[in-house]
């Protein structure tokens, strides 16, 4: 019944809502902020897990970020990072196979991970910002606030931006570690995630 109701009235409701939004000069929409395209070859998404306390470095080789950002109005920005989980590598084929298996990333059931934020916030410190967003990994979505520093060179279309930041998440929050891998005494729960993204303003 509900879907029927919406089908029937959608043609009316949507323009009404749109008109309302413009009339009330609501907070700026993400699409108001300029679009930035990530340069994949100059961008890195890395993670560090800990085995017996020693760092294990890895990275996602296939990910993309769609960024809307205006340094004067960070709240008008938005970001969506899409990560292909099967592109994870730690430069060890055996370990990578384990990482992608059902008990860890389960890349067959969860081929993509995603980080989204529908605004940015200015943080204390020069060029410091926060992306208060959500991380969806292995089908589990958790709030994650990503702090980063941003440097922009140039103006208008063609300007380049460099964002670098990182956070520490707990892998078990996202179910990365089923069965035997729930044990954190050998492979720790904490995983550091670092971004180093370069993008060009469109």
């Amino acid at each position, binding site marked *: 019944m509900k879907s029927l109701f919406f089908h029937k009235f959608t043609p009316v409701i949507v323009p009404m809502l749109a008109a309302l939004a413009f009339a009330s000069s609501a907070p700026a929409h993400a699409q108001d902020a300029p679009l930035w395209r990530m340069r994949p070859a100059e961008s890195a998404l890395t993670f560090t897990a800990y*085995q*017996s*306390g*020693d760092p*294990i470095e890895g990275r996602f080789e296939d990910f993309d970020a769609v960024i809307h950002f205006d340094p004067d109005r960070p709240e008008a920005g938005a970001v969506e990072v899409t990560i292909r989980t099967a592109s994870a590598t*730690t*430069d*060890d*084929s*055996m*370990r990578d*196979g*384990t990482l992608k*298996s059902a008990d860890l990333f389960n890349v067959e059931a969860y081929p993509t991970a995603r980080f989204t934020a529908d605004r940015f916030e200015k943080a204390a410190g020069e060029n410091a910002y926060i992306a208060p967003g959500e991380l969806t990994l292995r089908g589990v979505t958790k709030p994650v606030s990503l702090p980063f520093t941003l440097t922009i060179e140039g103006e208008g279309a063609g300007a380049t931006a460099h964002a670098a930041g990182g956070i520490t998440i707990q892998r078990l929050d996202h179910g990365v570690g089923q*069965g*035997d*891998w729930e*044990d954190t*005494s*050998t*492979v720790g729960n904490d995983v550091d995630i670092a971004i180093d993204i370069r993008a060009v303003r469109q």
Partner: protein
Amino acid sequence: MTATRYDPVAQLLHWAMAALIVGNFALGLYMDGLPPAPRTIEFYNLHKSIGLVVLLLAVARIIWRLRHPAPPLPDYHPRWERAAATASHHLLYLLIFAQPLTGLLIAFASKYPTTVFGLFNLPSPIAASEQLAGLGGALHWWGQWAMLVLVAIHVLAALRHHFWLRNDVLKRMLPGGSA
């Protein structure tokens, strides 16, 4: 004056290493078939830890052996038998160094940390390399079978001396009163 038995230190080193090598051989075969899991990592760390002890004991043994020569073999053995005994012992000495060292090569070249008896992590002096780890793995794999063959020859020869030739060659490596 010539001793007829190995001294207690040499005997202790011999039997401690025998136990550790046999145990680590079995552990190595067992853990090789385990699925990747934290417990498997613990088995690997135990295997590596025991291997390190074997290596340290091997060094101690060589030093001890250089200062305390082995008791002589019975003099009725033909030359070829003496040569075979010497060669197989030298090969055994080579392998008790080679197995831990090729194991270390795998540990160092892999990107996995080596935790020694859960006490500390062994730092790797070399950069990770799947090629080197693969080479170490192949050498370690062949080394285990070479070790198995040589230990079998060693044990069978000792039993031959004891039960067939009925001499004191096996007893030289056993504790006992003044022989």
